[in-house]
């Protein structure tokens, strides 16, 4: 089969990643909680979230946030994109009824001493005018059509 392959030479600093919009429902939140076996009530029980956490509804949990960021980034790179590092700060929660939009921008394009191609990204998640989560990511891209970052092992992989 064939798949999309983004190579390092196709990426420039300042380039935008196409936005991804998701309309969040209670099912979205609970699907992420189930996927991560997170039974803490604030991710499925609205009364608990309101009365104990002091927020307005159940909200998306940390692993689900991470999984959304991964999907957003690798939708752009294709399957040869290999995440080296991801860092995110959740400034506010995402609730049912929110339309969350992922945005991304290329900050840096480089090759390391082992010859691996890397892209530094800033990624952020907005709900309306508010930025709820800020993220930085470092992802390896193939330096040519024949290269494959997943083949790197040991000292050739420097995330």
């Amino acid at each position, binding site marked *: 089969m064939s798949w999309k392959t983004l190579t390092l030479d196709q990426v420039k600093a300042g380039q935008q990643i196409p936005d991804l919009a998701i309309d969040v429902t209670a099912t979205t939140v609970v699907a992420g909680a189930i*996927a991560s076996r997170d039974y803490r009530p604030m991710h499925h029980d609205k009364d608990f979230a309101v009365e104990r956490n002091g927020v307005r509804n159940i909200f998306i949990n940390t*692993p689900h946030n991470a999984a*959304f960021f991964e999907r957003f980034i690798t939708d752009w790179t294709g399957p040869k994109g290999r995440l080296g590092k991801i860092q995110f700060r*959740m400034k506010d929660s995402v609730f049912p009824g929110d339309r969350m939009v992922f945005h991304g921008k290329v900050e840096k394009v480089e090759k390391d001493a082992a010859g691996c191609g890397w892209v530094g990204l800033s990624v952020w998640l907005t709900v309306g005018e508010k930025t709820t989560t800020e993220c930085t990511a470092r992802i390896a891209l193939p330096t040519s059509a024949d290269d494959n970052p997943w083949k790197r092992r040991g000292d050739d992989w420097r995330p």
Partner: protein
Amino acid sequence: MPELPEDVKSWIGQKKYEQWGEFDVERGYIFTTCASVQNGNPLFWDEKAAQELTGGFIAPPTMISVWFRPHHWSPGRTEEAVPLQLHFDLKKRLALPEAVMTDNTITFYEPVRVGDRLKTYQVLRSVSDEKQTKLGIGRFWVLDVEYENQKGEKVATESYTGLGYRRAQ
């Protein structure tokens, strides 16, 4: 401002809760995670693509913590099992009934493969003084979680910042 208790100070830098995953890395949970975010990456769905690119099926890298989250019930268990036990230990010991995670950093090394059995441990790195936050008075703490596969190869390092707090009255 209350001092950080001596026993909590002694936890800093100590390796805690070393454990093996309860089950092997398997595709069912990978599908559940991919479905929860509509991730169609062929590495997780298409055997030929997985074989060609990664030498077989792997798990989404950001799923790393999922392999250590306890099931809601298991036979003989008498107390609630929670993920990231050290986080809950801090809440209890510091009498901070509510908590949220604010920051998460994950660095990925060897891919996690279907059939792997992973091992982990947790390390407390720091606990702040009490602070006034928008959620209430509380403390921030930083926890690292290390993950290895059954061959002893590092697969990921994760760092969390948690905020434990008492709600403002």
